[in-house]
């Protein structure tokens, strides 16, 4: 597997954990991996972006503009923001949640309408209501696992190793609910694929 992933969301949505799980997965597969994280200021409700590079002989820990095979976006505005990172022909996996930036909260700006449609005109988009799926799985904060589940199914990978990667990173008290969210994400993709024929 050789894959460059950009993970983008809003501070507090669990993007860091998602990148660590992908890091653990690559390690389990015996692949080289580099992950670039953002700590500090932007974690206070700002836009947060992390990069995961899996393959062999990786140099830069960053995914460049135009370099991501996959963008995992946790929010619609953030998905729009991340589009230039996507490689031509890459895929965007989008949790379709809307988190209003302060300018929308205060009424100075309107939340962009039809963000997903705009994206669909440009690239392949897999969008889903990851928040509801996470809530059903029993933990609203496991949106990150739902999206990883979609990625796993999209790549057509055996979930076994992914489960192990989750177990390596997630605290044992939260493991079960996180795996449930992960599998729900996987199932969602598989079912929607079936529906699409």
């Amino acid at each position, binding site marked *: 597997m050789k894959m460059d992933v950009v993970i983008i969301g809003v501070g507090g949505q669990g993007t860091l954990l998602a990148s660590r799980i992908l890091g653990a997965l690559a390690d389990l597969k015996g692949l080289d991996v580099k992950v670039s994280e*953002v700590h500090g200021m932007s974690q206070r409700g700002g836009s947060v972006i992390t990069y995961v590079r899996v393959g062999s002989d990786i140099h830069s820990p960053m995914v460049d503009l*135009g370099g991501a095979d996959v963008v995992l976006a946790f929010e619609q505005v953030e998905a729009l923001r991340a589009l230039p990172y996507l490689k031509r022909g890459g895929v965007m996996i989008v949790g379709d949640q809307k988190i209003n930036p302060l300018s929308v909260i205060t009424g100075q700006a309107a939340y962009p309408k039809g963000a997903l449609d705009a994206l669909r005109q440009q690239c392949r988009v897999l969008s889903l209501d990851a928040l509801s799926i996470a809530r059903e799985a029993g933990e609203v904060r496991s949106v990150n696992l739902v999206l990883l589940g979609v990625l796993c199914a999209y790549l057509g990978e055996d979930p076994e190793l992914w489960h192990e990667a989750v177990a390596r990173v997630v605290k044992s008290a939260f493991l079960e609910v996180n795996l449930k969210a992960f599998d729900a994400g996987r199932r969602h993709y598989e079912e929607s694929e079936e529906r699409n024929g």
Partner: protein
Amino acid sequence: MLGNEAVARGAYEAGVRLVSSYPGTPSTEITENCAKYPEIYAEWAVNEKVAMEVCVGAADGGARAMCCMKHVGVNVAADPLFTVSYTGVNGGMVIVCADDPAMHSSQNEQDSRFYARSAHLMMLEPADSQECSDFARAAFDLSERFDAPVMLRLTTRIAHARSMVTLGERREREIKPYQKDIRKNVMMPGMARGRHVVVEEREKEQAAFVETSELNRVEMRDPAIGVICSGIAYQYVREALPEASVLKLGIVYPLPEKLIREFASKVQALYVVEELEPFFETRLRAWGISLAGGKNLTGLQGELSARRVEEAFGRETAPLYPAQETLNRPPLMCAGCPHRGPYSVLAKLKMHVTGDIGCYTLGALPPLSAVDTVLCMGASIGMSQGFARARGREFAQHTVAVIGDSTFLHSGVTSLINAVYNRTGITVMILDNRITGMTGHQPNPASGRNIYGEPAPEIDLAALCRACGVNRVVTVDSFDLAGLEKALKEETASDEVSVIIARRPCALLDRKSRKTPLKADPAVCRGCFSCMKISCPAIEKRDKHVWINPDQCVGCGLCLETCRFGAIGGGEKA
């Protein structure tokens, strides 16, 4: 492993005994990880200068010691830094400084390599997590070998990137014997003159050493292009110019002149690719080595990337999807943040605010827009004195210096003493949330616990201010808007120095006071939007009314005080 974890690991394996640091992104996790090794004594110092002095003491005392800080922290510690270069060490001493190109979490983009040159200290720069560990170990050995501290420079993309690290065993080291030696350790003019000679000799020896050190590495590939680089820039160059020959500098000061000349002679066109300042480039040009390109290609500002290097060298870059019009999402104060109350009152009273650095810097952003200045840690209190002297009493009575608890203890308290001593009647507001919030909740002397979470003496800020000679000290709950307003009006009116301590623990830590979300009743809400002035991310404008987002609201109740119509309710103990 995170680069910062790997530095901690390398130091651990090198037998480090003591780590004293002040937090600062992107260096913080090094010390946090050191605290996880039972063999290491780790502490949060009150500031970088103190941290470095504790380390110098430990090193003089024969132990291996390390202090870690962000780039601007080195400014604070610069005083001991320049002179410990003269005294040297005994046990190995490593100073880690983490630069932040592109200012992800900083107020400037300074390049700390210049410190190594001005202080005549060797500086290493790793290019991935493995090297973070390897170079940390090497730095201790080099420190003992040359009897001088060694600096280890990181940048954000090294400190906060994860890559594979091979673990080694810790090599325990005896504490070296300590011998009092005033010629070496008492730096008064007579002795310092002698030590300055030693510094110069040492630098010559180091310059000879770096010519053959394996920390510098020549990778000959196609000789058409030769690039000199270090740290993260090396990774970008390898990615962007895979065929190019590279001289990768692991030691960025002193520079290996012979090795560089030799490399220059073997390649057809020589380039320097470095982030921030033209540090290598200037030196090379001074040596008369001709360059085909350097900063003219890569620029002085921000971070590099593989793509920026490709562009600089005129290579083809990957095609891009067009950037979409979207909304900015700057960081904001959390729902329930105790800094919100004080700022909403300061904004309401239209006070001038000399601000400081911490989560509360976010009060400068609209809609609160409550801050006039932010310079560096501790500057708020000094600057307000300057404003008062320059613009007089009237202005002083509408000015407040706002500072966090950690920042006050870091470098605010001396400025407060200055105000008292010089009778400059300023008003200071300490936003006391009992923690160093911005950098990720490191405890400080106001927290009542240490880095290990063990109970520690909790400093009494009010008593401290009184002891400095401040007669007017009041403590107000950060959620008591009326109380804050009264205190601000009274204290700014006074001609004396006064301190208002706005107190309430950080909302992210204070789970005890969490309540169920509040609700705004649309039938009662008149749409005056007074509650929106506090700039809470949970309160949204929905048509003619406000709506409180239950996923955001922590029930802090600050907005209750702003609604004259009693439209907001709820908030039971969660």
